[in-house]
């Protein structure tokens, strides 16, 4: 099973994974939990890199799938917790249900009591949602700015929907107090393992012929259409896969965090994910890791002291990255390495388009 990676990158990857593996032993529980949550975000960012960095689909609403997966798991754990903790939950049902006048868990929610049903159900449900959305959007060649804006609206609507249906979702405060796997080193390793598997999977996809077609779609969708590819199908496929990845990440996040709210579903997280990928480097896979860890890590370290200006700083950094370093950190490094190699081979690199993606290709 070839990993398709040059020797030196493979060694680096093993090193990084090793560091992440032993991290809890040196950093303590709090940081371990933090890193676990960050890794969930990394997986989310990875899924965004697949659809945006490689295929050119800018979705500003993919947190819907992350949050969706999270809600399935959180609900399931909450139902279980409420049913088995009579001391805290006398009536055996979650608090937010009680506050909204429910006396028993609704029938259609019952199956969620079993986590081994709820988690896969969440993943499949998000996949289905993405498939339907992708079908509606991509079959009609809605892309570029229109797609971005529609996904943004979708995200906002789902967020409001979640808040509104408070009897079932905990409303604005979300789902809390359901026991969690925090400070559990084994669970941390599970998250790490899933992250590694997802990276491997993403690499397989992007280095395959399929992956190359995706990139061709990003570069020039029209040209690929006329080479006989049903571009919409490719987009729908990768969009669905990305959604399911996000759902897994969201489920793990919910299990680790112990709290889930509308924030995990709304436009804020959706756009944050795009920012992480943009800063790390889109179309590089590893950029998703670098960008997320860098920004989230800096946020946790700096916001403790500079809480008041952290938001402002992120905004400014983002603007600078987009304007000056559109390939992101990893992307710019790779591009420089390529240039150096080309120069060494005696060829002067000609005009280079700045970003790794073509923009709206004219349709008519």
């Amino acid at each position, binding site marked *: 099973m070839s990993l398709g990676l040059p020797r030196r990158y493979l060694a680096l990857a093993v090193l990084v994974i090793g560091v992440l593996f032993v991290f809890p032993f040196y950093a303590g529980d709090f940081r371990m939990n933090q890193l676990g949550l960050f890794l969930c975000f990394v997986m989310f960012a990875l899924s965004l890199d697949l659809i945006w960095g490689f295929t050119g689909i*800018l979705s500003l609403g993919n947190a819907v799938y992350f949050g969706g997966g999270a809600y399935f798991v959180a609900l399931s754990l909450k139902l279980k917790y409420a049913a088995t903790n009579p001391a805290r939950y006398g009536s055996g049902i979650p608090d937010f249900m009680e506050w909204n006048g429910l006396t028993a868990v609704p029938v259609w929610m019952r199956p969620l009591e079993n986590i081994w049903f709820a988690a896969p159900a969440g993943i499949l449900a998000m996949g289905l949602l993405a498939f339907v959305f992708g079908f*509606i*959007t991509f079959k*009609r*060649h*809605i892309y*570029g*700015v*229109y797609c*971005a*804006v*529609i996904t*943004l*609206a*979708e995200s*906002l*609507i789902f967020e*409001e*929907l979640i*808040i*509104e249906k408070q009897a079932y979702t905990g409303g604005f405060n979300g789902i809390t107090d359901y026991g969690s796997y925090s400070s559990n080193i084994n669970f941390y390793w599970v998250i790490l393992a899933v992250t590694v598997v997802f990276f491997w999977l993403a690499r397989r996809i992007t280095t395959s012929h399929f992956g190359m077609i995706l990139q061709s779609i990003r570069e020039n969708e029209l040209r690929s259409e006329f080479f006989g590819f049903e571009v919409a199908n490719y987009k729908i496929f990768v969009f669905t896969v990305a959604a399911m990845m996000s759902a897994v990440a969201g489920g793990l996040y919910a299990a680790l965090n112990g709290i889930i709210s509308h924030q995990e579903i709304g*436009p804020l997280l959706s*756009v944050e994910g*795009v*920012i992480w990928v*943009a800063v790390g480097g889109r179309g590089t896979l590893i950029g998703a890791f670098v960008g997320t860890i860098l920004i989230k890590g800096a946020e946790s370290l700096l916001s403790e002291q500079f809480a*008041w*200006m952290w*938001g*402002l700083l*992120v*905004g*400014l950094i*983002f*603007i600078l990255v*987009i*304007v000056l370093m*559109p390939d992101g950190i990893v992307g710019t490094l790779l591009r420089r390495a390529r240039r150096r190699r080309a120069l060494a081979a005696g060829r002067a690199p000609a005009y280079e388009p700045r*970003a790794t*993606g073509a*923009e*709206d290709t004219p349709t*008519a």
Partner: protein
Amino acid sequence: MAEALFAQFLTGFSIVAILLIISLGLAVIFGVMRVINMAHGDFIMVGAYVAFVMQEYFKLNLFWGIPAAFLVLAGIGMTVEWGLIRQLYGRPLETLLATWGVSVVLQQGIRLIFGPELRYVRAPQLLDGDFAVPGSNLPFPYFRLFIIILALGLLLLTYWILYRTDVGMRVRAVNQNRPMAEVLGIDTRRIDRFVFAFGSGLAGVAGTILAPIKTVSPGMGFPYAVDSYMVIVLGGVGRLVGTVAGASVIGESETVLAFLYNNVIAKLLVFTLIVLVIRVFPQGLFTLQRR
């Protein structure tokens, strides 16, 4: 029930007017520059804060706030266009993301200056109270009537500028065929700056109008931004009639549906409607075909 429905329909008019005011600026910008300004909602928000400042520090009422907001936001718009949009010319997705950065900066900046608390702006006394809608007993607030009149006024102003002035003609030329306009000697960069400033100014005005209705806070702008995007997606690009159509359909549908069900269901249904319409008209209901 029928009377209540009619009342909602009337209220819907003012909602349509609000949508029109907040979308007009963006529609003009997007029509000419094909740029989605993710900070549009925050421009609206800044407009609301301008009204607040005028009220608290200058003791001037909303009628002064409106032109002040226009000028302030036109200035901000010009700065953003010059410093940012121009650098990313020809890359609409990049521009969209960069303006998101501007949005964050504006929100955080306002939060630093004014704090996160809600602020209140009063409507001018002149417009307090209701009047009876002729032909029924329904009360209709003067302020909402003012909004409708203002919306029509701004629409007419935009129309007049676009179709009756020299500048407007150049804007339309750039809108329809940018390379050709350049070849004919039109300074498209200048036009872009003008358009962006004008659109931003309109956003500022929208903010002052909304300030008395909704409470003013740093994060108030975002839902309006999304609303305005939907108006453009549905109504189409490059033609004023499209923006009016989009605002009307969305405004009335949302109001009536919100009355029949609730706010969130209304939004969901309208969103579904938009997506379905887009399937048939991928570029909106009334889009100008560019060569």
